[in-house]
């Protein structure tokens, strides 16, 4: 009676041992390729072989990143996703959009669920440091503001004593709000929300007196305020600016090749505006220009028969041409999505070229 039992026990024991050794060996195998991936292959190569750019975006902010009624994504940040795809893959439509909530975006970047984050994200030290993001050149200089109902008595931040203020959780806005109001000694109550929809309902019903966010986003929300609620005129953005919010695309730390590529796509849009290259004239300029700087920029050989200029960024030599042709220069991207003739109606302000008193300045392409 006893022996069969022993026979049954032995395989079970072996099984346990086998399981643990299997786990050990697989752990060794797993660890090595991972380490290799991190050091030698860049996301730049991954995107090229995949033929698709995975872009983390917003779907709720008109003008910057939103889902149109037709089911397509549009906006300023979306155009930068397209520009990167045009530069790396050659096709501005080769983008897979991943809509992300504010609190999800850095985890999504860390877990390599997305290649690049273009979701009205403020560049700051913590995000550059412990959040593991590397930021490209700022695409939009923004600032935090407060929006109130026009019918209210609030005219400035100092009027907001003892108010409730709606804010999205997981944003720098929430932290700025705390430090700014503390600094000014204004008692207030934060109302944190996960989604814009719930926040909007709370604001409409008067559960909070003000809505704080980046001014560009507030302008976007104001522009699409429904007519039955009084239209854009029913809302006022207070003149105070609570913080600097430089919005920039971000990639994961530890991949400088990819970071450089993304950065130079942003710089190319700025440089294209400086060269007065537009979607309309770039084909013509490419054949007719005599300016060596423009020739280098568009990937045209300086002299016939010689190879075109390649700075070794890992991007095609004519990436700037592709970006300009398919998406346009910075001014075109700006005017199309958020400029004075759009619903947002934001003046260029700080987001003008350095030659016209703005902050946009591209490093030389040579």
């Amino acid at each position, binding site marked *: 009676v*006893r022996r069969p039992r*022993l026979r049954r*026990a032995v395989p*079970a*024991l072996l099984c*346990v*041992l086998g*399981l*643990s050794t299997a*786990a*050990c060996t697989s*752990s060794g195998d797993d*660890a090595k390729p*991972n*380490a290799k991936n*991190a050091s030698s292959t860049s996301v730049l190569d991954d995107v090229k072989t995949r033929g698709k750019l995975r872009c983390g975006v917003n779907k709720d902010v008109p003008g910057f990143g939103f889902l149109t009624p037709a089911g397509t994504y549009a906006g300023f940040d979306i155009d930068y996703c397209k520009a990167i795809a045009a530069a790396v893959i050659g096709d501005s439509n080769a983008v897979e959009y991943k809509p992300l909530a*504010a*609190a999800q975006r*850095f*985890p999504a970047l*860390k877990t390599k669920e997305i290649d690049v984050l273009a979701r009205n994200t403020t560049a700051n030290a*913590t995000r550059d440091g*412990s959040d*593991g993001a590397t930021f490209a050149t700022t695409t939009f200089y923004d600032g935090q503001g407060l929006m109130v109902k026009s019918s209210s008595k609030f005219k400035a931040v100092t009027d907001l004593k*003892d*108010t*409730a203020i709606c804010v999205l*959780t*997981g*944003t720098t806005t*929430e*932290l700025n*709000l*705390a*430090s700014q*109001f*503390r600094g000014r000694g204004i008692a*207030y*109550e*934060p*109302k*944190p*929300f*996960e*989604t814009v929809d*719930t926040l909007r*309902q*709370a604001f409409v*019903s*008067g*559960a909070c*007196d003000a809505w704080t966010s980046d001014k560009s986003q507030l302008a976007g929300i104001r522009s699409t305020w429904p007519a039955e609620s009084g239209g854009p005129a029913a809302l006022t953005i207070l003149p105070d600016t609570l913080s600097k919010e430089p919005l920039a695309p971000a990639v994961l*730390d*530890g991949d400088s090749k990819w970071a450089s590529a993304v950065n130079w796509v942003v710089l190319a849009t700025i440089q294209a505006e400086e060269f007065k290259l537009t979607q309309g004239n770039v084909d013509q300029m490419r054949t007719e220009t005599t300016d060596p700087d423009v020739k280098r920029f568009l990937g045209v050989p300086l002299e016939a028969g010689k190879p075109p200029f390649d700075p070794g960024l890992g991007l095609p030599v004519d990436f700037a041409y592709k970006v300009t042709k398919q998406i346009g220069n910075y001014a075109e991207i700006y005017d199309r999505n958020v400029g004075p003739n759009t619903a947002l109606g934001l003046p260029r302000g700080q987001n003008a070229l350095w030659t016209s008193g703005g902050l946009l300045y591209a490093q030389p392409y040579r």
Partner: protein
Amino acid sequence: VKGTRVRFGVRRLRRVAVQLVFLVAIGGMVAWLGSNLSANLRRLGFSTDYSFLSQPAGFDIAGSDFDSSSTVLEAMRVGTRNTIQASAVGIVLATALGLTVGICRLSPNWLLRRLGTMFVETFRNVPVLVIILFMYLAVVLKFPPIEQPLRPLGLAVVSNRGIWLPAPLRGFVPLVSVLVLGAVVAAVVTAALARRGARRRGLAGGGILLVALIAAWASAGAGLSVPQQAGRVVTGGIRVQAGMVALVAGLVLYTSTHIGELVRASIQAVPKGQGEAAEALGLSSSQRLRLVVIPQALRIMVPPLANQYLNLTKNSSLGVAVGFAELTLVTRVATSSASPAPQAISVLMGVYLALSLLIAAATNLLNRRLLAAGQR
């Protein structure tokens, strides 16, 4: 006989050995996973310690003294307090409503029975998150604005920023603690008197409870603090945040349907013969329920009831959807500012685990008592 004993010993040894090997294998696995995680985090340049808990939080939490210069640990403490408050109130209300619904479902009254069924089938079959969002967007936000609140009986302030209720002058803590103490004393004295077979022991217990009630009232300030509203500021009373109102309402509606079904099922699970036997002994219908049916039903009810309490406590994390600063929301805000997610979430899990184990321990105690009473 001797041979059998030896064999028994060997078999036992073998069993212990197999289990030991298992334990070592599982322990090794966990250790390997843990070291893998921390090695990878280090490789990616993330911190693996818990020093973030003593860093300043940088954000504010509504409805508390907490401000942005306090530490992350303090923020999580406030979050835990809010979670406990919402769960405790939710458990009490869900039990009361659940009992009512369960009894309604068994009522001989046609209308009550149908209403009970309708209630159960409506709220049991809608996701609890949907109920909470509905309560917030369609009910709480439709309360009047803070400048013109409802003042039922002049005692409370009801607005879409929250509900302020009258409270004892020195708060609820002295009131509840003295009351609990009084109840314990009353229970002990009544039990002692019962053992001696004293008559009128109920009267003695009731007297002690009455004294405790008066003492509790006196220690809580012997008066009411009634909330007063002026503009956007409310002073006095105790505040229930708008998010908590919606959260607790949603949790109570959802959980009470399950508790109601439990109550109904447990009462029906008591064999019919028990009631009939009690009737044959000449017990009245209320005595039949109180002395025969309910004690047996309780024994069936308590273990699954504990599950419902655990679910309610864990579901309170859905407060994140309506902006109520319970522990999950606080942790999310902390991780999105500067706190490392794996460590912060491990703290979050630890707190939920502790709360759940506490509830399980309390209901187990109750269960053991009920079983003991049954065996006596």
